[in-house]
């Protein structure tokens, strides 16, 4: 074999993802192989073997690799030198690249890639291997974390199943970042494929050799991981490598339940049990995946009931009906929790689905919820699981206390257990829990966690919110605010605080249906319109209010959906002004008189209200 006459013609760095370095060679004509694919085992001995190209990986330092004629193994002509950059090197974050041929080589007669390496300091090479051809990389094999030190040492990468490598183009690749943020240099020499009788006991594994069992359902995909192949090296130690799925032949024991692709992706296609196993060559791989398929997922056919509570009385965590507050996570994946969460749509409605639910933590610590003014906690759940007693579903709320963080001695919580007949199978159940029932939850000003648990492994969850159920009182419980305006600046129609216009008729008969009374609210005389359709006020005398700015009103209504106030001058000329109803307690308003144009402000004779509901009025005056 020609070992020493290869010369580097040069290299160039095109723009793009990687830089391509080309090596040419002189080749002895007697080296020519008659085989379709050459079996040349040499990669780098005293120089590069024929037809080898180099490409630096994207993001790496393109010039990290050089041929070194000073530092070499056994004073040979050349070695490969790699300069790993420092952290934050502007040229690239790491050193990495692959050596590949244009024409594949038949490496099936070898069982190992061997090379020698040393480094300027103790280091762990991130990835070293072969089979990276910058294309499909079907038969990539790598070792992660290869320890090198300042002495030359030989390393051996066993080939998991050499029969696969009959047209391999990826001869060698590496990738290494800074060690403790510091760059350094390493050298590699004598890189070649070999057939070693001292490599023995090849084994292969999927799932790291474990026999795993999963519950799954139709449509789910599971990627087989933990692919390793191990052989015992001449030194008596086992060396594991990471092969690609293409080295394996995967088998499903029941393809009507699960199929498995050549890349190790399992697809669930039916109900029942199946076992996924694998072979590498003629060797059975250890590890298996037993699939218990429940078939198609059972899910609600209809959306959860749409909430009817007014948004103003709700703090919503999850509902399409409301604007939701931020929730950090709907599955904290706490230790021992088996819950999986899926965000699904049921009849166009967003729903959270939990599977394998034993318990699940839901956290909103970034922005805790102050539910002090709320009275109830609401959630809708749907489960396909049996709900007959004593099966239960538990709802726990956790308050982080004044420090707003977990711990610190001020956390409080309480858990409520729900059973049939509230629980039901395969129907939406609306759960409304009075917050007073959470007796241990002595504060709810810094709620930060919700924990769901119980005997229902499958739960669809929707409309999670706090709300205030208190029905507003039909009658004000407090008096209208006492006016602070100076009596000298006021022309008053109806107020205890001022002298009112004499002889005003508060209930002129204009054919209205409104029932007008005067009632004492917290000792304060108040004008009440019951069953308003419209209602006039006939002033005791014509009023010139052109020097005033505002009409002041205090009004209170729990049930009105429409309320307008009018000023009227002779003609009659009248203009309405719309008031916001229902009110939140007493509403005090100063209406600019300009709003009533073209009413003649120098000659006001009447006021009028129309709308609906029961209205309480007080402190009607111009100011």
């Amino acid at each position, binding site marked *: 074999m020609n070992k020493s006459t290869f010369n580097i013609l040069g290299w160039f760095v095109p723009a793009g993802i990687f830089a391509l370095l080309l090596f040419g060679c002189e080749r002895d004509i007697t080296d020519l192989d008659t085989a379709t694919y050459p079996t040349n085992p040499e990669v780098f001995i005293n120089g590069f073997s024929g037809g080898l190209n180099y490409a630096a990986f994207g993001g790496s330092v393109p010039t990290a690799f050089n041929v070194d004629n000073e530092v070499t193994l056994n004073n040979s002509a050349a070695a490969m030198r790699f300069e790993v950059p420092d952290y934050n090197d502007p040229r690239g974050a790491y050193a990495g690249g692959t050596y590949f041929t244009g024409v594949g080589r038949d490496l099936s007669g070898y069982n190992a890639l061997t090379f020698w390496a040393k480094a300027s300091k103790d280091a762990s090479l991130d990835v070293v291997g072969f089979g990276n051809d910058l294309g499909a990389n079907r038969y990539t094999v790598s070792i992660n974390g290869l320890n090198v030190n300042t002495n030359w040492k030989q390393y051996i990468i066993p080939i998991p199943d050499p029969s696969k490598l009959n047209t391999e183009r990826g001869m060698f690749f590496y990738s290494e970042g800074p060690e403790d943020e510091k760059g350094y240099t390493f050298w590699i020499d004598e890189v070649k494929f070999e057939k070693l009788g001292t490599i*023995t006991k090849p084994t292969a594994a999927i799932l790291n050799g474990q026999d795993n069992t999963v519950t799954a359902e139709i449509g789910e995909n599971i990627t087989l991981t933990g692919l390793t192949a191990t052989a015992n090296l*001449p030194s008596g*130690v086992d060396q594991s490598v990471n092969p690609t799925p293409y080295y394996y032949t995967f088998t499903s024991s029941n393809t009507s339940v699960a199929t498995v692709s050549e890349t190790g992706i399992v697809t669930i296609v039916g109900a029942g049990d199946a076992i996924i196993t694998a072979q590498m060559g003629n060797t059975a791989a250890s590890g298996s995946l037993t699939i218990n398929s429940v078939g198609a997922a059972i899910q609600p056919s209809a959306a959860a009931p749409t909430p009817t509570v007014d948004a103003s009385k709700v703090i919503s965590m999850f509902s399409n009906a409301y604007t939701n507050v931020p929730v950090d996570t709907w599955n904290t994946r706490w230790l021992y929790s088996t819950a999986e969460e899926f965000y699904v749509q049921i009849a166009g409605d967003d729903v959270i689905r939990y599977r394998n639910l034993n318990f699940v933590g839901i956290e909103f610590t970034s922005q805790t919820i102050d539910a002090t003014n709320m009275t109830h906690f609401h959630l809708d759940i749907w489960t396909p699981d049996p709900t007959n007693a004593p099966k239960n579903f538990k709802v726990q709320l956790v308050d982080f206390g004044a420090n707003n963080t977990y711990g610190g001695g001020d956390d409080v919580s309480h858990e409520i257990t729900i059973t049939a007949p509230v629980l039901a199978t395969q129907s939406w159940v609306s759960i409304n829990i009075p917050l007073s029932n959470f007796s241990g939850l002595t504060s709810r000003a810094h709620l930060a966690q919700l924990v769901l648990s119980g005997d229902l492994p499958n739960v669809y969850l929707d409309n999670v919110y706090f709300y205030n159920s208190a029905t507003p009182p039909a009658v004000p419980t407090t008096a209208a605010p006492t006016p602070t305006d100076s009596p000298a600046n006021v022309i008053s129609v109806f107020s205890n605080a001022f002298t009112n216009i004499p002889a005003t008729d508060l209930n002129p008969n204009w054919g209205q249906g409104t029932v007008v009374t005067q009632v004492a609210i917290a000792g304060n005389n108040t004008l009440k319109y019951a069953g308003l359709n419209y209602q006039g006020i006939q002033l005791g005398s014509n009023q010139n209010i052109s020097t005033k700015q505002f009409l002041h009103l205090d009004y209170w209504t729990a049930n009105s959906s429409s309320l307008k106030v009018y000023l009227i001058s002779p003609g009659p000329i009248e203009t309405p002004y719309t008031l916001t109803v229902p009110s939140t307690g007493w509403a005090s308003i100063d209406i600019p008189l300009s709003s009533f144009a073209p009413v003649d402000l120098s000659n006001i004779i009447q006021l009028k209200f129309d709308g609906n509901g029961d209205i309480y009025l007080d402190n009607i005056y111009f100011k």
Partner: protein
Amino acid sequence: MKITNKPTNIQAYAITLLLAITLWGGCKPDDFQKLDKRNWVLTWSDEFNGLAEELPDTSKWNFNVGTGSGGWGNQELQYYTDRSKNASMDGEGNLVITAYRESYAGSPFTSARINTQGLFEQKYGRFEARLKTPYGPGLWPAFWMLGSTITTEPWPQCGEIDIMELRGQQPNIINGTLHGPGYSGGNPISQSYAMPDNRFDTEYHLFAVEWDEEKIDFFVDDYLYQRIERDDVSGEWVYDNPFFIILNVAVGGNYVGFPTEQTPFPQKMIIDYVRVYQ
């Protein structure tokens, strides 16, 4: 650092030579290294044909139990037990001595060591065992003999004949060794036999000595790789007494170093038979 001795003329690589002999067909076996068959008469054997998990035949074998003195004199790490877990038949015609990485009676490993002391001892003859070795750094399997006079004469005066020893980190090399007065411990008379591209843990190999009043010949697969004659011994020739046989798998110790995290366990020495001829 231990450096394997370079091969001498009689320690040439067996594979190469045997292959050459086979290919050249007409050539005679090497007069020196392929000895003529002799009329050996079987005097003792154990074919290990018991049922699976059966302990070694108590009429032929004793167990050494425990940690010995100073790890059997070698700072070995294992605890030798007499459990079938560590030494028993496999039901397929073999005795299996198995070393485990397990905490037992204060030791980090268990294994087994059996001997024929007081049950079978013989002076001169051919002693052979067909076996597969364990492997891995820190494993030290051995098929060897001690002089029966050890009950009255301390080692090394009693003499020791190591028919096969192997360091698990070099599973392609075995050693045949004599320890006697003036040439023991780190300074014995020893020769290694290496397979350049194969290992002793993958297939069965036959390890033997042929011993008479003049010499001891060491064989692997009937290939003579070492002859030690009475005159070759720098000290006293102490091989004119009956010797007894020992089989063991040590873990760690002066000879082999410590096992590493990467050493695979459990490790087995699988012995097809032990035969002795006169």
